[in-house]
């Protein structure tokens, strides 16, 4: 047993415990909605928990979980509601157990004893199980009416037994599908022989193969074995190791380049060349693979939310459904953990400030149940997580008034919705007058923004008063690898992150408007003026203070061609154009942090190293956006 007390085991145990608790919550929410449908999933979870506890040195919890499992599998539908609430308590206790273990405290198991006492009060609901049988029935291949025949057979069986489950499932049989073999699981007070006789007397039945099942647990074990066989084997790998692999691959790429150079100097043979190419290809394949390994489906953090939204709804007397779509979509491992807090915050806001009380919703002719949708989608190289509630929408007047009261904007100014959205996320601005237990004072939207921007994402808001609020988090799929657009400016290579690049235009030189007073350039795109940043002049003459507002305009005449490339970069409602001489195309790069001096300029967000060892600086368009606003 001592072996199990090592820290590593404890970590794994905690990880599994947390996962199981989330699984349990998901299952319970389902069961609560649909109490008639007994959840095999919950039984499976309880079964796994039981095993976990017995292995990790908590025999009393193990036996208690066993009782829970038994209770749930033997309870009639009348008792389900009570069991669900008990199981929710149980799940809460498990959560606090996990918390105290994580904090290195001795877990308090006293409250589990109380739950055990409550378990005893369920005796009334327990059905005498009798025997449990699994029967395989084989029909004659000549039988043309198998589903109808099965229905007759099940009717006969139901006189003497409770049919727990059939394969194919009842709905399919009733819909008239054809099949050759039927599996029935039933509980009965009758013995094996009586049941066999009923089945064999049925027309078109060739044979019946009956076997006694020990109790519900044995079927759970069966299904879990089936589950395992469908899933590929997994191994847990530390994130640090993956990062290290990416770094090492980068070094391999560079040394490959040296080998190539040495080979070239020595007029290398064709087979050398081929082998080197294959070596480089392999490295690039491994790189792709490692990137993919870092992706984790968002599901891993989303499972906790339905329970949370349910509880929040109950606390505030609101009826709220959370519908999640696209949870299989993966994001980078290092990003996923950081998303939990912003999502929690936004969901709390949606329940607290978005969804109205049932009575108010009915007045507005809405369904009394509010809906929050958490939709996850791929868009270009980003993941978009949208949280959309069908609640009361943003109260723009209130936000504007509040901002004026707080002196954030001068009174008398009218801000666009877009600008008010920005305020929402930039200041500690709350439009709810009273502090609620659920989402506090609205403090924290700025923190949401900070976290999202830290992982390279941004936020978009859309709302229609009275109808909905939608908040979209736009997150890069992988932080390790970024797609960039490579540019060449006077033989100097630069890159701009592809994220937020809206389009690339080729503009005749006479369409570029020049304001001689402020020395700025702009073009008209879709009837809107877009400020232009001339990278050539910017980098030639202004490298010492990029944050200064004036962009000097000294394009040397020999650089003027008839057409210019304009890279349109969009963030929220703002668009910037970069005037670029030469575009070298898209590529995936690993961004490395840059040293203090360069990073202080603010112009560059990082650097990357190309195969030849050449360093390419990566522009931070945000910085230009900020300077252009003040211009």
């Amino acid at each position, binding site marked *: 047993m001592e072996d199990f007390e090592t820290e590593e085991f404890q970590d794994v145990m905690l990880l599994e415990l947390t996962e199981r608790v989330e699984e349990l919550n998901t299952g319970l929410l389902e069961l609560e909605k649909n109490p008639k449908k007994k959840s095999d999933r919950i039984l499976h979870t309880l079964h796994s928990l039981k095993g976990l506890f017995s292995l990790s040195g908590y025999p009393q919890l193990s036996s208690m979980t066993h009782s829970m499992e038994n209770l749930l599998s033997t309870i009639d539908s009348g008792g389900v509601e009570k069991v669900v609430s008990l199981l929710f308590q149980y799940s809460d206790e498990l959560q606090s157990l996990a918390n105290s273990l994580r904090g290195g405290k001795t877990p308090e198991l006293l409250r589990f004893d109380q739950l055990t006492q409550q378990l005893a009060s369920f005796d009334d609901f327990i059905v005498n199980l009798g025997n449990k049988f699994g029967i395989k029935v084989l029909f004659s291949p000549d039988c*043309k*009416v198998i*589903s*109808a025949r099965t*229905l*007759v057979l099940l*009717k*006969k069986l139901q*006189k003497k037994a409770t049919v727990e489950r059939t394969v194919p499932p009842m709905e399919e049989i*009733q819909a*008239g599908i054809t099949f050759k073999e039927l599996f029935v699981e039933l509980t009965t007070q009758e013995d094996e022989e009586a049941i066999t006789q009923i089945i064999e*007397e*049925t*027309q078109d039945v060739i044979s019946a193969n009956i076997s006694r099942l020990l109790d519900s647990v044995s079927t759970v074990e069966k299904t879990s074995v089936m589950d395992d066989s469908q899933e590929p084997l997994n191994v847990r790998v530390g994130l640090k190791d993956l990062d290290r692999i990416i770094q090492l691959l980068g070094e391999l790429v560079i040394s490959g380049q040296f080998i190539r150079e040495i080979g070239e100097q020595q007029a290398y043979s064709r087979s050398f060349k081929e082998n080197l190419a294959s070596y480089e290809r392999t490295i690039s394949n491994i790189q792709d693979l490692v990137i993919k390994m870092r992706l984790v489906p968002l599901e891993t953090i989303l499972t906790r939310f339905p329970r949370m939204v349910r509880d929040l709804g109950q606390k505030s007397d609101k009826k709220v459904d959370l519908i999640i779509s696209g949870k299989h979509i993966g994001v980078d491992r290092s990003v996923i953990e950081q998303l939990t807090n912003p999502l929690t915050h936004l969901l709390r806001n949606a329940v607290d400030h978005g969804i109205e009380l049932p009575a108010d919703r009915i007045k507005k002719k809405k369904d009394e149940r509010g809906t929050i949708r958490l939709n996850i989608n791929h868009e270009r190289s980003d993941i978009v997580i949208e949280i959309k509630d069908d609640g009361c929408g943003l109260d723009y007047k209130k936000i504007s008034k509040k901002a004026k009261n707080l002196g954030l904007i001068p009174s008398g100014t009218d801000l666009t919705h877009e600008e008010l959205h920005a305020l929402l996320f930039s200041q500690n601005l709350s439009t709810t007058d009273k502090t609620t237990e659920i989402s506090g004072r609205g403090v924290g939207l700025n923190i949401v923004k900070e976290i999202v921007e830290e992982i390279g994402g941004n936020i978009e808001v859309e709302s229609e008063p009275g109808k909905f609020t939608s908040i979209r988090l736009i997150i890069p799929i992988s932080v390790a690898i970024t797609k960039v657009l490579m540019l060449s400016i006077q033989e100097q290579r630069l890159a701009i992150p592809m994220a937020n690049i809206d389009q690339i235009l080729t503009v005749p030189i006479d369409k570029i408007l020049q304001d001689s007073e402020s020395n700025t350039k702009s073009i008209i795109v879709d009837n809107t003026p877009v400020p232009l940043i001339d990278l050539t002049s910017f980098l030639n003459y202004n490298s010492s203070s990029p944050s200064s507002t004036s962009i000097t305009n000294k394009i040397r005449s020999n650089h003027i061609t008839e057409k210019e490339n304009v890279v349109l970069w969009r963030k929220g409602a703002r668009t910037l154009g970069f005037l670029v001489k030469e575009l070298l195309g898209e590529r995936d790069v690993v961004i490395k942090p840059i040293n203090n001096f360069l990073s202080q300029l603010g112009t560059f967000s990082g650097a990357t190293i190309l195969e030849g060892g050449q360093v390419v600086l990566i522009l931070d368009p945000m910085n230009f956006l900020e300077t252009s606003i003040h211009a």
Partner: protein
Amino acid sequence: MANVLIVDDSKYLRLMISKILKKHGHEVVAEAETGSEAIEQYKNFKPDVVTMDIVMPKMNGLLAMKEIMAIDPKANFVVVTALGHEPLVRQALKIGAKDFVIKPFKVDQLVQAIENVLL
């Protein structure tokens, strides 16, 4: 041994079913040609089992079964129908029929179905 009401729009089939049942010791208390007639006869004779054709002119067997079940929820039906009407059979089973035979059926299939219903 049971008292049986035979419902079928084919006289030939009624005769055949009647002969088979009698030969196996059952009593045919009445016959009906339509759904509405079946309801009347059921009220008159309170049979133990009804053999019920489904596809009949005027009131079909399913409707007749529903009405009879409304009078006597314990009524026993064996549905007799042609191959290819399986969806109707499943509907009949849902309404409350206890067994069925598919035309053309073998003698012992019908007998077994009647006995099954009486179990």
